[in-house]
């Protein structure tokens, strides 16, 4: 029986034998939704959890949350995907990636809380979901189309042309199945996925991608071109009036007022300032928009981070996608390069390091007749022509693209460069072969979370405060809007951890016991509130209110997450109970990684993190000589022994074996995961 927020069933599709079945959501409701439900499904449905990501038994879950498709701000539009990944190095860990847009809402309106896809089709197919009617369709004619072309074809097919002329169309055969004006929400692969690239993504609409992990390659390995969904059903809300009132109150108190902002960038057309103010159109970060545009958001968003442009090129792109060709001489070419990725379905974060390849060329190592043979036009580096050749070679597996399609880490390994270049930092890939995102020697909830997990965590909830705030203010000549001390106090209070020293990024602070608590909180928080309930990473949590009208900078979290969740579901969950579910999900994931071969000895960073001092200034809060300050953290290296000691204390805190990092039976049973302990034990991998 579904409660508010859930629609009651999960779709299971087996592409090997064509089975289409329903799974009752209630069986997995204890995990919240999204990632938690996905991991629980994975545990139940994948017998051998050590299979390779390309194996037909690999399970893709595309899950919503009870908040999907609802008015809960910036929690309605994310779809969380779990699967055995392709890109992590040296082992393709069981991993996750989520994407925004409309897919999650349409899936709920169609009557599904999620999708689980297993098996492998003999021929190219796409999955067509129209309310409760689910069919596996022939995708022969779609194979070879780019991600945009594929979506347009499916829109027209599903709507029978109605989305072309803007008329209502029926989803089903009679009027009682409902009509819609909305286009089907389609998640698809491009050529990169078809060619089984480890760095392929899936794309939905113009710029929503699930990229890290190589989900596009997993789709391709199953001969799955796309999943389309359109729905006309309803999502029940336990307390509608409370939800509307909470949304209104939240928006009035904490959102950026577009007509009369409380805080505004002193520099016009500077999207990155939105890291502080939450202003719309934040997506392109440092790139001012050169042509007229609108903000564009996922369903239910109150921020609307992205933009659609009058050129139609680079629509809805954001973050590192927008910065892919940051060295381009003009924004027209920069946007073109970004569109190349979108249409090919290539994950920007693995191919972001084209400057590394250029460095190898300049070092006389890569190029015609050189140690690493390549005919890429390095003489045109910095032009769109180079970027076109670069992307083309990867998606078609030609030239060095044959290696790069396996991911930058595996390519560097094949070239004999991995060890030397990650030791020097020339190739700055600190954890599991993923590109450095933020400074791993300083902003340690990012790096520790990544190495203790499965990927670059890509969790900005604290990062916008501790990293971006002071840097962005400095970029426009402003002092911080809040002192370092006040910042960490608000974070400590909002998280519930209580001790502000958990957010001390000083030489001592990054190894301390308070940091253990802060990292633990972060892992549990993100696993539940963010990745299972699908609160957007770019909007939540909200610990500091820079849009305050009355000077009170206290943020919305955790009060509003709890209010929203309970208004939707009718439950009475507390913040702390959510964190405990996060602990459960995090530990379940750890059990899967353990079966895949994880041991604490593997949870170490690339050598440059330990051996090469930082050179670029950061701006993190640090407690130095008895006082809080924002500090650049120059000259920092991570100490191997101290980090190992940190790991020992962290494992103990999580209830994991300190010698191996494996979960123990006592912990698993306390989390109601005794069946997981049984399987670990039968595989000789239960923590002592």
């Amino acid at each position, binding site marked *: 029986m579904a409660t508010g927020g859930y629609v009651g069933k999960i779709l299971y599709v087996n592409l090997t034998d064509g089975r289409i079945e329903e799974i009752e959501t209630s069986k997995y409701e204890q995990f919240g939704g999204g990632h938690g439900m996905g991991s629980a499904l994975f545990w139940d449905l994948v017998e051998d959890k050590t299979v390779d990501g390309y194996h037909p038994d690999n399970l893709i879950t595309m899950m919503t949350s009870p908040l999907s*498709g*609802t*008015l809960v701000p910036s929690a*309605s539009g994310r779809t969380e995907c779990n699967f055995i990944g392709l890109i992590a190095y040296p082992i393709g860990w069981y991993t996750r990636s989520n994407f925004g847009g409309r897919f999650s809402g349409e899936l709920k*309106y169609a009557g599904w809380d999620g999708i689980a896809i297993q098996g492998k089709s003999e021929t190219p197919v796409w999955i067509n979901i129209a309310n409760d009617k689910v069919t596996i369709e022939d995708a022969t004619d779609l194979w070879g189309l780019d991600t945009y072309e594929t979506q347009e074809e499916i829109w027209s097919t599903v709507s029978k042309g109605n989305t072309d*002329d*803007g*008329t*209502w*169309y029926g989803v089903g055969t009679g*009027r*009682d*199945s*409902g*009509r*819609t*004006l*909305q286009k089907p929400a389609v998640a698809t692969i491009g050529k990169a996925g078809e060619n089984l690239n480890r760095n392929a993504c899936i794309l939905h609409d113009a*710029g929503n991608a699930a990229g890290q992990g190589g989900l596009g390659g997993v789709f391709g390995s199953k001969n799955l071109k796309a999943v389309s969904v359109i729905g*006309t*059903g*309803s999502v*029940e*809300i336990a307390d*509608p*009036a409370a*939800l*509307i*009132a909470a*949304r209104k109150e939240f*928006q009035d108190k904490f*959102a950026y007022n*577009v*007509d*009369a902002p409380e805080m*505004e960038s002193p520099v*016009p*057309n500077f*999207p990155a300032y939105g890291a502080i103010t939450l202003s*719309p*159109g934040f997506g392109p970060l440092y790139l001012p*928009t050169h042509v*007229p*545009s*609108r*903000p*564009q*958001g996922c*369903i*239910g*968003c*109150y*921020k*609307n981070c992205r933009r*659609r*442009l*009058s*050129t*139609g090129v680079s*629509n809805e792109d954001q973050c590192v996608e927008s910065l892919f060709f940051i060295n381009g001489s003009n924004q027209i070419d920069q946007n073109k390069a970004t569109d190349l990725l979108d249409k090919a379905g290539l994950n920007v974060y693995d191919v972001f390091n084209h400057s590394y390849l250029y460095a190898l060329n300049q070092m006389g190592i890569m190029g015609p007749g050189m140690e690493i043979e390549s005919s890429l036009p390095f003489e045109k580096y910095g032009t769109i022509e180079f970027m076109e050749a670069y992307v083309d070679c990867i998606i078609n597996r030609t030239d060095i693209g044959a290696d790069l399609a396996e991911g930058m880490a595996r390519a560097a390994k094949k070239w004999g460069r991995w060890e030397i270049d990650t030791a020097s930092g020339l190739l700055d890939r600190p954890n599991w072969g993923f590109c450095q995102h933020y400074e791993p020697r300083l902003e340690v909830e990012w790096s520790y979370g990544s190495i203790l997990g499965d990927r670059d965590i890509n969790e900005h909830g604290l990062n916008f405060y501790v990293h971006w705030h002071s840097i962005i203010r400095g970029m426009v000549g402003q002092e911080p809007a809040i002192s370092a001390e006040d910042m960490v106090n608000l974070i400590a209070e909002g998280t519930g951890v209580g001790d502000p020293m958990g957010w001390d990024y000083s030489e001592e602070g990054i190894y301390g016991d308070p940091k253990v608590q802060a990292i633990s909180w972060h892992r549990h928080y993100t696993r539940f509130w963010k990745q299972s309930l699908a609160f957007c990473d770019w909007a939540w949590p909200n610990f500091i209110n820079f849009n305050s009208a009355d000077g009170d900078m206290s943020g919305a979290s955790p009060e509003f997450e709890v209010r929203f969740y309970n208004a939707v579901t009718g439950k009475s969950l507390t913040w702390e109970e959510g964190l405990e579910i996060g602990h459960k999900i995090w530990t379940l994931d750890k059990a899967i990684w353990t079966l895949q071969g994880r041991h604490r000895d593997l949870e170490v960073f690339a050598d440059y993190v330990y051996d090469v001092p930082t050179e670029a200034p950061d701006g993190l809060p640090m407690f130095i000589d008895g006082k809080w300050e924002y500090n650049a953290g120059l000259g920092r290296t991570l100490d191997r022994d101290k980090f190992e000691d940190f790991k020992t204390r962290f494992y103990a805190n999580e209830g994991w074996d300190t010698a191996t990092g494996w979960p123990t039976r006592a912990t698993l049973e306390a989390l109601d995961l005794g069946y997981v302990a049984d399987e670990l034990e039968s595989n000789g991998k239960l923590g002592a």
Partner: protein
Amino acid sequence: MADIDKKESVAKAGVSRREFFTGVGGLGVGAVLGGALLKGILLPDEVLAIPASEGYLLVDTKKCGGCQTCMLTCSLAHYGRENTTLSRIQVVQNSFAKFPDDLSIDQCRQCPYPSCVDACPTGAMHADPTTGARMVDEEKCIGCERCVNACPFTPSRVQWNHEDQHAQKCDLCKNTPFWSEEGGADGKQACVEMCPMHAITFTKDIPVQTDSGYETNLRNSHWGHLGFPVDDAGEKMPG
């Protein structure tokens, strides 16, 4: 269904009221009279006209963020459940298209001469006696969908509510049992209240009966400061 069978339901004998309404394209007598509130105008087939609505939703499509918050709010306030297809205001967009032609906001015009009201054989579709808002008396609706098909706009602003089995359209939030605010032409409208981009507004003046009459520029200098256009056409970079 829906718009597809619209033409077949229109009477063709002489100049019907619907043809009159559609023929004036929305220009209508309301505009001719300069926006005065109409309480009884004689139409070509000598039927007393319907009181004008005392409120209208205006939108700035160039300010819209496409988040569909208005739709989620509309569905929730009226029905207590979320369903974008049950929203009486519809945002329709194409991710790949060029701004500003990538998006439309399709809201009811509360037409001065409402074809939907005229087409209803039971009086279910009516003008609210106190505010003039064109509304559906759900108890009287027999599901013939003449109102749906009579709407002169594409897409039709009147919808078939397939879950509750009646026609529906924007009532300016007159009947919002799941919203704690007072709605209607004399109250608040949920979509206006909740739009995070402040791209929807409400007016009591009858708009000029063209598409542009319901399109307004709600963008000020702060919008321009964010790098978005503030000119009416949305064609110029600010500054």
